[in-house]
């Protein structure tokens, strides 16, 4: 069901100049932050708790709970993760380019609520236009006194630094991001300590939140947490920005009320995806970014709901939905995804560094028609050595979750399309006609 919930994070997208300060101020910009400054820190945090805002980065951890875990210390940091680099995920890209002030305002609200000493926005370096606009927005925010000393005449002062990433996907992993921010190689940190909220940037307690999470905060402060929680169902509250791509007629971004809308709505509704291209049948779809296990037509009626998708064996993740139709070669699709992960492995720990490359080579070989009968068992077993048991959520033999993400598409596609894999091996070529 498509609800008529008003958009929250994309509400300015109708304007050509949505990224500009003038437009932002005209449309209620910084009102949320100003309101927050009149509230106590605890009240602001309470509103976010009441909103039960789930982190929009991929793991879906409740933002309010993350903030409450922050160890008290004289110095603490807020780091905004804008290193969105995964194929098919492009929601933060939109927000950075089209509404940078909203991110900054959200970050300021969060920093105020948690009492951070400094804000860093770690933004993907390849967002050339977005970075320019974000930096421009930051400069403007300093000029109008939204950032800096005694903000808007209050006793609250904070600085914000925008840090462009250097091109590594792994720096989207929060501890690798922190390492990179500290000027080191982007290697994920080994756990324990488990949470940056205990030991994060420069060893200080740190909240790491996603761009989209921040973008929701001005609205939540202005309209109250309860209004946000009234949208959606269960733990999946509010609206969420979905990035739809693949073989659909109308790919793009859609901000939809959570839970109530289904994957079928998203893909087939004429106002949304408008169906599979060229009228073909849907073969499979990825419900939450390329690190998520695939779904088939049988899961189309699931709601865009974190818990429901999780129970069905995958994840809503980064909110990226990729559609494959009957002409899509699943081996090639799995190979392309695996190739991405294997190239983006940081190389620190063995299973991911070596396993990713190995899996990629086997898949490529099968796709090129040089597969062997034993390859499917081998693929599954190598996947098992990365993510023991191939359970969901996955167990891992690695330091971070990049490694166990690799088996998602491989194991799910083999389970769903074993015959197609066999056909590749048997016929010595790709039966779908892709190279």
């Amino acid at each position, binding site marked *: 069901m498509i609800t008529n919930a008003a958009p929250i994070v994309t509400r300015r997208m109708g304007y050509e100049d949505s990224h500009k300060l003038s437009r932002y101020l005209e449309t209620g910009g910084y009102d949320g932050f100003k309101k927050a400054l009149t509230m106590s820190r605890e009240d602001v945090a309470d509103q976010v708790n009441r909103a039960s805002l789930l982190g929009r980065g991929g793991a879906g951890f409740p933002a309010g709970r993350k903030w409450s875990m922050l160890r008290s210390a004289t110095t603490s940091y807020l780091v905004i993760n804008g290193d969105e680099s995964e194929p098919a995920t492009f929601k933060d890209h939109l927000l950075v380019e089209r509404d940078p002030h909203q991110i900054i305002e959200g970050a300021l609200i969060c920093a105020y609520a948690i009492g951070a000493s400094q804000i860093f926005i770690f933004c993907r370096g390849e967002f050339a236009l977005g970075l320019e606009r974000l930096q421009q927005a930051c400069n403007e925010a300093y000029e109008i006194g939204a950032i800096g000393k005694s903000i808007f005449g209050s006793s609250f002062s904070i600085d914000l630094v925008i840090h462009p990433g250097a091109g590594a996907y792994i720096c989207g992993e929060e501890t690798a991001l922190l390492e990179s921010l500290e000027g080191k190689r982007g290697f994920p940190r080994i756990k324990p300590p488990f949470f940056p909220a205990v030991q994060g940037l420069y060893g200080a307690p740190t909240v790491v939140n996603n761009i989209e999470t921040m973008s929701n905060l001005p609205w939540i402060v202005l309209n109250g947490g309860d209004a946000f929680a009234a949208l959606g169902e269960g733990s999946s509250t509010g609206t969420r920005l979905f990035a739809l791509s693949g073989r659909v007629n109308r790919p793009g971004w859609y901000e939809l009320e959570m839970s109530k809308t289904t994957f079928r709505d998203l893909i087939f509704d004429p106002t949304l995806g408008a169906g599979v291209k060229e009228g073909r049948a849907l073969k499979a779809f990825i419900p939450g970014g390329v690190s998520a296990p695939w779904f088939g037509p049988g899961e189309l009626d699931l709601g865009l709901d974190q818990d429901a998708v999780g129970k069905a064996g995958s994840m809503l993740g980064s909110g990226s939905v990729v559609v494959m139709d009957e002409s899509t070669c699943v081996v090639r699709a799995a190979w392309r995804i695996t190739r991405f992960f294997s*190239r983006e492995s940081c190389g*620190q720990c*063995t299973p991911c*560094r*070596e396993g990713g490359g*190995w899996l990629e080579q086997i898949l490529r070989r099968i796709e090129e028609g040089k597969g062997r009968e034993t390859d499917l068992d*081998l693929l599954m077993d190598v996947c098992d050595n990365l993510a023991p048991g191939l359970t969901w959520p996955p167990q891992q*033999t*690695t330091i971070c979750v990049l490694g166990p993400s690799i088996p998602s598409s491989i194991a799910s596609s083999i389970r769903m399309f074993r015959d197609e894999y066999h056909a590749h091996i048997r016929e010595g070529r790709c039966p779908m006609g892709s190279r």
Partner: protein
Amino acid sequence: MTELDMSTQETPVTVSVTIDGNVVQARPGELIIEVAERAGVFIPRFCYHPRMEPVGVCRMCLVEVSGPRGFSLQPSCYLHVAEGQEVITNSPKARKAQEGVLEFLLVNHPLDCPVCDKGGECPLQDQTMAHGPGETRFIEQKRHWPKPIDIGPLVSLDRERCIQCARCTRFASEVAGEALIDFAFRSSEIEVAPFALEPFSSYFAGNTVQICPVGALTAPPYRFKSRPWDLEQAESTCEGCAVGCRTVAQSSAGALVRYLGVDVDGVNQSWLCDKGRYGFEAVHASNRLSLPLLNRGEELEESTWHDALLAVSDSVQEALREYGPSSIAFIGGARLTNEDAFAFAKLAKAVIGTDSVDAQLGDGLPAELVLGLPRATINEAVKAKVVIVLNQDLREELPVLFLRLRRSVVEKSTAVIDCSSVTTSLSKYATSVRYVPGDLARVVALISGESNVDALGLDQDQIELAKMRLSAAGLGDGGEGLVIVCGRGDLGESASIVASAAATLHRLFPKARFLSALRRANVHGALDMGLAPGMLPGRVTFEERSDALVRAWGPMPAERGSDAIGTLEAAAQGKIKVLFTLGADVLSDVPDRDLAKRALAKVPTVIAIATHHDSTTSAATVVLPVAGEGERSGTVTNIEGRVAPTTQKIVPPGVSWPAWMVAAEIARKIGSDLGFESLFEISEEIAALAPAYHGVNLGLANSDARREGVVVPVGPVAIDIRSRPLDPIATPGISSVEEQGAPIRLGKTARATLAGDAGLESSGGLQRLVRALGAAPLVVAPRADSYTYRLSIRRTLYDQGTLVQSSSSLAPLRAPFALRVHPQELARLGVKDGEELMIRTSRLAIRVNVIADADLARQVVVLGARAEEAGTFGAFDLIDAQELVVDVRLESI
């Protein structure tokens, strides 16, 4: 495990963990992998190294560990034990994870074991056999890269073989403090690399080769020299400097091919410097002596032991007859073993009757000071509250002591006060006091809070800061918790100044301990054996000689002899008729070369007892070849006074003898007898007659205490020797090689009722001498005029010395010969960086290249010790041994 907890302070609190069903007690903070190993369960590993921080990257040590959400796979090298924890190392799930990781490691690891140096002693090979899958399922292309690339002068990297365990990169940054290598690129293309403009040029680079668990890092000196199964080895003690690192010497086909560091908690903790690691090449150098040489008139000719010893005894007997025993002198001995040194001390003092014996060459400190100051061990130094370093650059002189000290400063915030005339390798970790050479005694008196000391010309702020550091450190009564490191780091500042500084500190902080930084391998052992004027074996003065010694040695020399400089001065006046040089290149090593030249020209008979041809053997009348490092057994004593065995692994070249036999034969030829016929008999005599060495004989040094050695003197408390088994994964290459060598038979006191470090008090006579030094007025050099520069003469690790220059790998690495001058002074002189200028003393003027160095004080200029080009002049030509400092004028050309 780090520097901190390695020495195992007992903590009463323990936790119980279950490992494979057995309950094990562990200390909180211990790693699962260590606790399991103690319980007899070996968990396979690659990146874990007991002397470095864990990183958990190789994932080889995954085991199942219980947690709040049930069992999960966790790296046992990274996880600390917790009460009630349950660990399963061998469940199907754990075994599958381990096998999986090994299979992953082999995905891109080339199977070139047959041509890999590591094959046969390779942890990857071994653990694949023990824990890996039997067959490969990988049929794809492995990654390919050009075979070894040189990433530094003594390290080659084969990136194909690298398993990214980060041991080398961690060693470089964590242990050596020089992050010159790191990972580059990512995914399976990740590689270890140096930085673009800076090679991996580190004194400690060889350690990365040793700890590499595969054949990725190799060292050119060993590459393709041998296979592990063709190696034989013997544990020994490094004789590259006086730290006395524990090593194994490995040989193949009768030649030394490799030295590896052995983990000894008190000393080197498995690390070596590259000079110690590759210096063995000098043993097989082309300038080794193999036959006795004799000059019968014109030039040295090859001779026989018979003729050469006859010539020695003739000249000795003639000198005794005509001029008396004081016309005979001995210089050198710091490269001998304790037993060799004892034999020569007995030859000189008991048989010939001369006291002019000195193991130091004018570049050390007064023997009574070195022997008389209360001593610290290295472990005490790294645990001290404050360490004061007196004008030493430890990385250049005693590299592994620098490693230990640096790490303790970084990890434990031990405060270091670095009193030096130049910036040293410890400066950036220290509170530094810079001064112009000559002022050391004033500086230490001022920072210790002495009033009535003239502070003119010193940096008040730095002195105040050091003083605060010292007073805020919470030292105990009498300076307990303070350790002072002193030696001759600057040959431009005379020994009397350093002695005055050290003795003053001893007066002000009577409970402070001292660590000698004298650098020649066994200089401390030689001094202990009596190779110093006025001293007898076992750190006693003539006056304190025991009845037993008098009974054994007979009458002692009637008069006190002179030290090396005194001997050379007497020689220059024609008073020395026979001069023995004991492994000392007097013409190159004595820092007053003019004096050495004048002296040697006047001595009718110079008898060089040596291992290599050098400038002194060329000028000698008789040259007697002796066995060197790796070619003879015995004991050596390090800076702490730790006695450890050095072991024969190969036979010496030609007809070279162990040095003690030469002493014994000379005694016999002049109609006497040293009274011993074997190494063990010497050792028994030392243990019986040398008070500080009471009970410490070769048997002990080769028994329980063999690896850690014994710090002498040993007190009444029993020594607790923790001989940990060597971890074959931590130190690959040692336990895979068969132990052979020449174990010495055990003596009567082998498992003695000995020891403990309670007996560190020096003898009363020595204490009086040190007190007298401390009570004397401070020795301070007079101030120079403003046109004069003061020369600081400093050693670099790779110098012009015989050992380095005879090692083909090290010789090219020696520092360039140049004078370092402050750039503003260069501007004043009108000389540009890299150009030549004239350096002038009252004696002579020499041309040198200059290097601008903005770190220097403007009045200070620096020259490397002995850095002369062959046949030209060098720093030692500028030194006048009579002066407190070396004042020079600089002139443009």
